[in-house]
């Protein structure tokens, strides 16, 4: 019983979250529309609906704060959609604040806390102060011969839309369609989508008359700039009968005396009154398809708790272990002479392996969500901070459809938020400064995402003034993070990486948003926890680009098993570029590090046995030939010298447990299927550690251990 309630509550939270996100997307689109000085009444209406649904849900689950907020927000959106309140930037500000408050309100409700949220009352207060415009005087509808019975059943909103359309000079049409009950959904979606390319469907009115018992006749009231002929060309295939709603004749201009009533009267395509100033977007009729498909897709989705997928993934992981055991058994049987039996077992095991692979991919796919989810949230932050800091920011997003593991997406939000804040606060100059250096007034922040092999790359780029390298180094020296004598030896990329040291900020005064010196190191830690790396590059006066490289998923990984001084380790294949034979003659020392040259590029070498301080196991003969596994992460490369390569295997990484969680260089442990356990190397952490070897030495001198 209690479990059922909890489950329902959980569903409430995830549904509420989705509604808030969809509200946020609507507001962002509205914001864009307002800036572009266009109008999209559908967006206001959708926002209204989302809040409306949210209010209902909140009532159902006793989420009072969410309910109160929704209730007031609904009123505001209602006024907006009815045209009682003009949509301005400041109204949008309030709406965006409401979106942020939903986040707070939901987490308070989730914690079942009774803490009041004064911010909600404050916002509601501000809502109350929004001006309200009275309804306009004479009805613009008077000039159309509209059926009073039809007008009587329009809701206030529909009537408002109808008036607005008429004021914009659109013509009105009655589109009569007879729908078969069995296929009404699809047929309707189809005709709705087609009609929408011509204008706005004000309402759908059942006529009450039908040709048969299995059909329903509907009148669509359509406001459109298209001519009757155009509409007929596009809608006739749906069996629609289209009649223009005629303009009322004004006596003085009426030359003809024919009565205007009567269905048999030939449709008079009255010369359109002033054409709409902004023409409706011309969409090809085939734009109908994706719409209909999207509609169906929504109805066929289920919401699944990610923990269920984790549990499934674990089972797949266990099965992978069983599969490995099977493979070994078939090998053994074959080796022991059971040829026939061995190869039969082998072929069963192969087909098991294939199906298991499919299943694993299937589950992985289900876990994938588009990065757009995070980007939407960032878009809100950009807008808000930009406005509050008085900086005009243009956000350009590409690759929002790039997919990544749901768990990673959730952890990405905070670090990215921080990075974007930094970019606006530290990166983008104030307007006067931008004018002075001849940059466009609006600063640009680009969010780019794309998949690169088994990784997803996210770039955050700004066109601000870049990072002041000298100031950065000076600050690091003052804080004792860098030895003044070694400053000259720092490579440029190493200088930029100073940004990620804890406690470092070049901004003299902390603003509300960034510059407190906590942040970039936390960002880096969070990204590392996800198995990712972060690179920063900056050019003075041109801008800064931060590149985050992340694995596509954390759930299951293909790993290369390597042997080092008699022990087996697993190295995730996502970061392995290649494996080559180690030629000791090629290894030379450079700045106190072992390096070799691979295809003309210097490659630092790391001997893991030495790093981990592994003593050779008794009876293990040092191998004659060693290998170098080349790992790459972002722009960094490192060669790991290992004794042997033992093949590839899919592994499920299990955490090391609390007592070992502080150990760097390992992301966990895994079972290999033959009762053996192997540690999983964390190439990101190891590369990190190795490539700042000189720094660690320094830290030791400074007593950081």
């Amino acid at each position, binding site marked *: 019983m209690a479990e059922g309630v909890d489950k329902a509550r959980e569903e409430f939270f995830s549904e509420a979250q989705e509604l808030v996100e969809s509200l946020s997307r609507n507001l962002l689109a509205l914001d864009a529309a307002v800036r572009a000085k266009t109008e999209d009444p559908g967006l206001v209406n959708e926002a209204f*609906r989302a809040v409306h649904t949210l209010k209902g849900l909140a009532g159902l689950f006793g989420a009072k704060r969410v*309910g109160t907020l929704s209730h007031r927000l609904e009123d505001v959106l209602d006024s907006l959609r009815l045209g009682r309140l003009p949509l301005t930037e400041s109204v949008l500000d309030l709406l965006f604040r409401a979106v942020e408050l939903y986040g707070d309100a939901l987490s308070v409700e989730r914690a079942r806390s009774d803490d009041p949220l004064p911010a909600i009352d404050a916002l509601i207060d501000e809502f109350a102060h929004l001006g309200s415009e009275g309804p306009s005087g004479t009805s613009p509808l008077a000039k159309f011969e509209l059926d009073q019975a039809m007008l009587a059943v329009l*809701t*206030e909103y529909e009537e408002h839309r109808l008036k607005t359309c008429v004021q914009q000079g659109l013509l009105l049409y009655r589109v009569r369609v007879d729908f078969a009950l069995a296929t009404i959904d699809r047929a309707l979606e189809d005709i709705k989508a087609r009609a929408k390319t011509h204008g706005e469907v004000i309402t759908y009115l059942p006529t009450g008359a039908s040709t048969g018992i299995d059909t329903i006749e509907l009148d669509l009231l359509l406001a459109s700039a298209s001519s009757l002929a155009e509409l007929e060309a596009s809608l006739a295939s749906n069996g629609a009968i289209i009649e223009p709603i005629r303009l009322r004749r004004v006596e003085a201009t009426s030359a003809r005396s024919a009565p205007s009533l009567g269905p048999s009267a030939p449709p008079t395509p009255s010369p359109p009154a002033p054409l709409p100033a902004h023409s409706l977007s011309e969409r090809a009729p085939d734009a109908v398809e994706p719409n209909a498909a999207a509609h169906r897709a929504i109805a066929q989705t289920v919401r699944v708790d990610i923990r269920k997928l984790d549990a499934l993934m674990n089972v797949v992981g266990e099965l992978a272990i069983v599969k490995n055991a099977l493979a070994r058994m078939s090998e053994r049987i074959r080796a022991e002479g059971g040829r026939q039996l061995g190869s039969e077992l082998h072929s069963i095991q192969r087909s098991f392996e294939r199906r298991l692979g499919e299943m694993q991919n299937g589950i992985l796919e289900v876990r994938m969500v588009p990065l757009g989810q995070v980007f939407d949230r960032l878009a809100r932050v950009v807008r808000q901070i930009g406005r509050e800091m008085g900086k005009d920011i243009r956000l350009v997003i590409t690759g929002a459809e790039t997919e990544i593991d749901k768990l990673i997406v959730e952890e990405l939000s905070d670090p990215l938020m921080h990075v974007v804040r930094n970019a606006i606060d530290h990166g983008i100059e104030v307007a006067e400064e931008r004018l002075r250096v001849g940059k466009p007034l609006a600063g640009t922040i680009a969010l780019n995402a794309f998949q690169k092999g088994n990784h997803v790359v996210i770039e955050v780029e700004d066109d601000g003034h870049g990072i002041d390298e000298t100031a950065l180094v000076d600050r690091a020296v003052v804080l004792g993070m860098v030895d003044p004598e070694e400053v000259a030896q720092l490579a440029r990329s190493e200088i930029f990486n100073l940004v990620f040291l804890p406690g470092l900020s070049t901004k003299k005064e902390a603003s509300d948003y960034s510059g407190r010196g906590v942040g970039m190191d936390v960002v880096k830690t969070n990204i590392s926890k996800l198995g990712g790396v972060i690179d920063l590059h900056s050019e003075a006066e041109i801008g800064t680009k931060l590149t985050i490289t992340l694995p596509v998923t954390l759930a299951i990984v293909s790993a290369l098993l390597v042997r080092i001084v008699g022990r087996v380790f697993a190295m995730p294949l996502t970061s392995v570029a290649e494996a080559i034979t180690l030629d000791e003659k090629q290894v030379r020392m450079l700045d106190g590090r072992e390096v070799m040259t691979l295809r003309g590029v210097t490659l630092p070498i790391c001997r893991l046995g030495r790093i981990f301080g592994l003593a050779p196991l008794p009876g293990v003969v040092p191998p004659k030939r060693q290998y170098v596994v080349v790992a790459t992460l972002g722009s960094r490369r490192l060669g790991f010298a290992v004794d042997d390569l033992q093949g590839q295997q899919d592994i499920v990484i299990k955490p090391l447990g609390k007592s070992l969680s502080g150990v760097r260089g390992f992301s966990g442990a895994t079972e290999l299927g033959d009762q053996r356990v192997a540690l999983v190397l964390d190439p990101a952490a190891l590369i990190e550690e190795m490539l700042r070897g000189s720094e660690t030495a320094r830290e030791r001198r400074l007593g950081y251990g």
Partner: protein
Amino acid sequence: MRAFVRSALESGSDLGEVDVVEASGGFDALRLLPRGPYDLVITDINMPDINGLELIQFIRTNEHHRSTPILLISTQSSERDRKRALSLGADGYVAKPFTPEDLRSRVKAQLEKGRTSARGNG
């Protein structure tokens, strides 16, 4: 809202066993209507397709359903729409926000009224 209405109707024992048929919107309601008769229709005003006023008018002009009681769910703010709904033939309304108990008592009243005037089955 639909889920709320359904759970409100199905919880509590004062209404007895209620058979709730749920329509996803105005069109869906039109499609489900011929499967009636129903003892009561509960409708919102703002729906994604056909609006509640149109639905009420449709029901009131349909020979099979014209005497089916209609209960309107409306918001405080949409007074104009509520008045229109009542003038088009809705039998009563519940203003949002309401509790499950509010809804059940309104439904009960409508059902009892319906039973005394015309016998419905279902």
